């Protein structure tokens, strides 16, 4: 694998998921404790209300410190960020986070494509994009942009996904660097965290 190539420069790992992705995350996040050189951003399709259930759940399940996102929050290595419900999450050149309430994309706000595309623009080849389970086509266009900008793209093995449609769609329309089950995704993240 190409971890050696990326571990030195990876600044951001961004994970997108929809239906069934929480299961996958719950297998990955409890095994992570310290992120050395990169930030971890999670963009999940979630209910439209302003509740913090997902943030609270993730906080309980991992030792990685979770930052509750506010607009123009600096994106710092070592922290985990969760895209808030009802906002698109975007990245600025000065490595802060911007939020946006414009129209839903792929019936979703936050949309995975929107965050992936924005991250690709700012982080280029220092970016790893991971797409998990889901039953919607969100994420595929964003993965393309990440790859085009020089980043690494990983798709959850549809066999291991509760909802294989989203990873399958990505596999059909892009050429992922890796297709991995949850255990292998975890190992990948650990390997670039050395």
């Amino acid at each position, binding site marked *: 694998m190409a971890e050696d190539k990326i571990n030195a420069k990876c600044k951001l790992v961004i994970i997108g998921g929809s239906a069934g992705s929480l299961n996958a995350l719950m297998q990955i996040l409890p095994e992570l404790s310290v992120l050395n050189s990169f930030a971890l951003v999670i963009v999940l399709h979630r209910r439209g209300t*302003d509740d913090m259930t997902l943030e609270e759940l993730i906080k309980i399940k991992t030792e990685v410190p979770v930052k509750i*996102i*506010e*607009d*123009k929050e600096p994106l710092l290595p070592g922290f985990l960020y969760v895209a*808030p419900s009802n*906002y*698109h999450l*975007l*990245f*600025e*050149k000065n490595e*802060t986070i*911007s*939020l*946006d*309430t*414009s*129209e839903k994309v792929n019936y979703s706000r936050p949309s995975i494509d*929107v965050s992936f595309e*924005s991250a690709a*623009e*700012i982080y280029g080849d220092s970016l790893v994009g991971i797409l998990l389970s889901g039953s919607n086509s969100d994420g595929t266009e964003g993965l393309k942009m990440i790859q085009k900008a020089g980043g690494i793209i990983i798709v959850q093995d549809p066999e291991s996904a509760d909802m294989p449609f989203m990873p399958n769609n990505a596999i059909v329309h892009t050429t992922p660097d890796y297709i991995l089950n949850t255990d292998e995704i975890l190992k990948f993240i650990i390997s670039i965290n050395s």
Partner: protein
Amino acid sequence: MIEDIELETLINDIYEYYGFDFGSYSRASLKRRVNRIYQLDGFKNFYEFLSKVRYDPEYYKNMIDEITVNVTEMFRDPAFYKVVRNEILPQLAPKPFIRLWHAGCSTGEEVYSMAIMLREAGLLHKSIIYATDINSKVLETAKKGIFPLRMMKEYSENYRDSGGQEDFSSYYIANYGIAKFNEELAEKMVFSQHNLVSDNSFNEFDFILCRNVLIYFDNNLQKRVINLFDESLSILGFLALGTKETIKYSISTTKYKQLEKEKVWRKIK
């Protein structure tokens, strides 16, 4: 997709030709919005787009409407409106006269929500709500108080979640797919164009609302606007922002006391 340098050229041209300054807008969302219209309108290249913007004022106006975000709803974030109802309005109630400013009011859904709240608290008769936006088109909609009927189910749920106990449908008349809100609600509203980028304070207020507007601005412009609000807010007045917005990068927070979990700050000195 347009390039960063092209976006900067567009920003400069808009300023030069029309005097409107997007220079301090958040680049991430502005670029998305410009890309969206650039693609929707099917331009062959960036320079074709640029000259259309330069020489066709009608197109320019439409473009501004399209790139400024006007997504809003009535009783948006019901938990916030519950705090308005139960904590803020009772504090303002003893005042002989209550002045509110809704900055960036878009099509006015939240302004009508506030009028309903004030009316139910028995305060509307002694209140005045200034509602401003940069976009004159949305203000025209807001003045009419006409919203799509299909939204009323969701709004009525929001209203109830915010603690409303009246029959929500008594506030409007339904007709051919539209809901026209009672004119009595609009009697205390004053709509006018105001640009947070360049205009100054125009009054002193007891309650300023500016929800999900600052997210489209960069840090510097956020600072300017928060300071503009600070100048415009009376002592013990309230400032309410969107659920993910904060004043902490913009102003000394010792001047303000935050209402527990909500994005509401009270000016204490």
